[in-house]
């Protein structure tokens, strides 16, 4: 099984502060990998390195390599637009555009040059179905996305991400702003999506990590303390710090 993402000796700095220290991790293709760890440990910074969203921060610096399908994504020849099309992202707070439900999903297709309205309509339907939202919105596609519930908005954001056909979906605590029922729906969705996409999910919720992911990495103070199969990491942690964290002794 080839790895989709390989990170070697990654160090990330924001100005003077050293946020990520010597990160080495390999992410399996079409599986779910959870990143757990206390607040401020660098999980979000790490996934934002994978689609170069950190580039929007002027003080961002990094060394080390990040390979996607064997190619360095920080190579000067890499087009960030193409990269972000391949590596989609779902944010912590649902952030649909103040546009109609349809236009939210169609947005990514249109900016990538798709003009045929029939094709767009088909893709929108497909994506909404894949995101398990279609049944709830099929008769109100022209309604503003701002009128949906938080959980529906988050699934819309997932649909919007899926629409541009990424290989990888990064999820930055996608359920932290949602109620338990919406959370369950998103988790079910992750189970469905993992067959077609490589998913990396940041979560504060360790039960969620055990429920959705095959692999888990534990971050602490900008380092990966331990990573491996989720079951193993939770049942027989090798490192004392991992054990302390998963048994709730800190964090």
């Amino acid at each position, binding site marked *: 099984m080839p790895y989709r993402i390989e990170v070697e000796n990654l160090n990330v700095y924001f100005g003077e502060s050293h946020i990520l220290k010597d990160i080495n991790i390999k992410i399996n293709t079409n599986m779910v990998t959870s990143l757990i760890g206390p607040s401020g440990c660098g999980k979000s910074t790490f996934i934002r390195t994978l*689609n170069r*969203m950190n580039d*929007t921060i002027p003080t961002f610096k990094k060394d080390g390599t990040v390979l996607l399908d064997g190619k360095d994504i920080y190579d000067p020849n890499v087009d*960030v*637009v*193409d*990269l*972000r*099309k391949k590596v*989609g*992202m779902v*944010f912590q*707070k649902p*952030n*649909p*555009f*103040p*546009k*109609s439900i349809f236009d939210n999903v169609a*947005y*990514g297709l*249109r*900016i*990538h040059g798709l003009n045929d309205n029939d094709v767009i309509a088909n893709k929108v339907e497909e994506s909404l179905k894949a995101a398990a939202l279609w049944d709830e919105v099929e008769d109100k596609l022209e*309604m*503003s*996305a*701002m*009128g949906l519930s938080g959980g529906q908005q988050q699934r819309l*954001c997932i649909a*919007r*991400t899926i629409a*541009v056909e990424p290989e990888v979906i990064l999820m930055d605590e996608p359920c932290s702003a949602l109620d338990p029922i919406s959370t369950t729906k998103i988790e079910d969705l992750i189970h469905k999506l993992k067959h077609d996409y490589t998913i990396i999910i940041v979560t504060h919720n360790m039960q969620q990590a055990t429920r959705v992911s095959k692999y888990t990495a534990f971050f602490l103070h900008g380092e990966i303390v331990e990573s491996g199969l989720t079951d193993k990491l939770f049942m027989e942690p090798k490192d004392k710090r991992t054990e302390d964290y998963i048994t709730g002794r800190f964090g």
Partner: protein
Amino acid sequence: MTEKKEDKFIQWVLFATGISSILIIILIIAFIFSEGLPAIFSIGLFNFIFGMIWNPDIGLYGVFPMIIGTLLTTFLALLMAIPLSLCCSIFLAEIAPPNMRKLLKPTIQGLAGIPSVIYGFFGLVIIVPFIRIHFGGSGFSVISASLILTIMILPTIISISEDALRSIPFEYSEASLALGATQWQTIKNVIVPAAVPGIITAIILGMGRAIGETMAVIMVTGNVVQIPGSIFEPVRTLTSNIALEMGYATGLHYSALFSTGIILLTVIVILLLLANYVNYKTKVSIGGGYL
């Protein structure tokens, strides 16, 4: 107990000051109507609004050319000011580096503080001769006034639109960039559409300033009461009419100037209602979170 009294007292003071500003506006409107309505009745509403000749010496009071003059100068100014200020506000809000923005924004806001007579001077010395030399005529013209008004309303529209653009949450830009959109696609398709209600408010305020401007306009329009054949011909606006003749008018002429004020107020109210309607429509189409 005393704290409760203090609360009541402050509430009362705020209420009184709030109400008094509304009362003042009502009083001004009532005053203009009471001074101006009799003249409209004696001239006849239709003759007054649609009359083509304004000649107090022979008792002809028609303000139609001035309504056209006001609308023409204002809309021409908006036509030039809207694209300019929109581009400028996008640059300030989204593209300019922070230091440049810190320098530019106060400079632009400073433009709003220049007295209108100074703008008038500038128009008189620079724009009027420019029009005269390059486009013929006297140079006192619709276009001269519109150019001056354009400059005058830029700071209003720019700074309010810029505030509107900057108030759009970064989450929207982030979502767009994460989908692979370029910065320009993000500005064009996400940020600007979301800021449209605020931008319309900016345009309304700019329009209000353009309609009401008197001094700078008097100095460059030539003040001839006529429907101009082209934008290079002189014109007179409603505000100019009042300011030019108030000093010496008596009797019916005096009242007719107040009637001009009534027409001016009516034109402004109609335009404001229209603009608010457009604003409401766009807000509804943007949807939920913005209402």
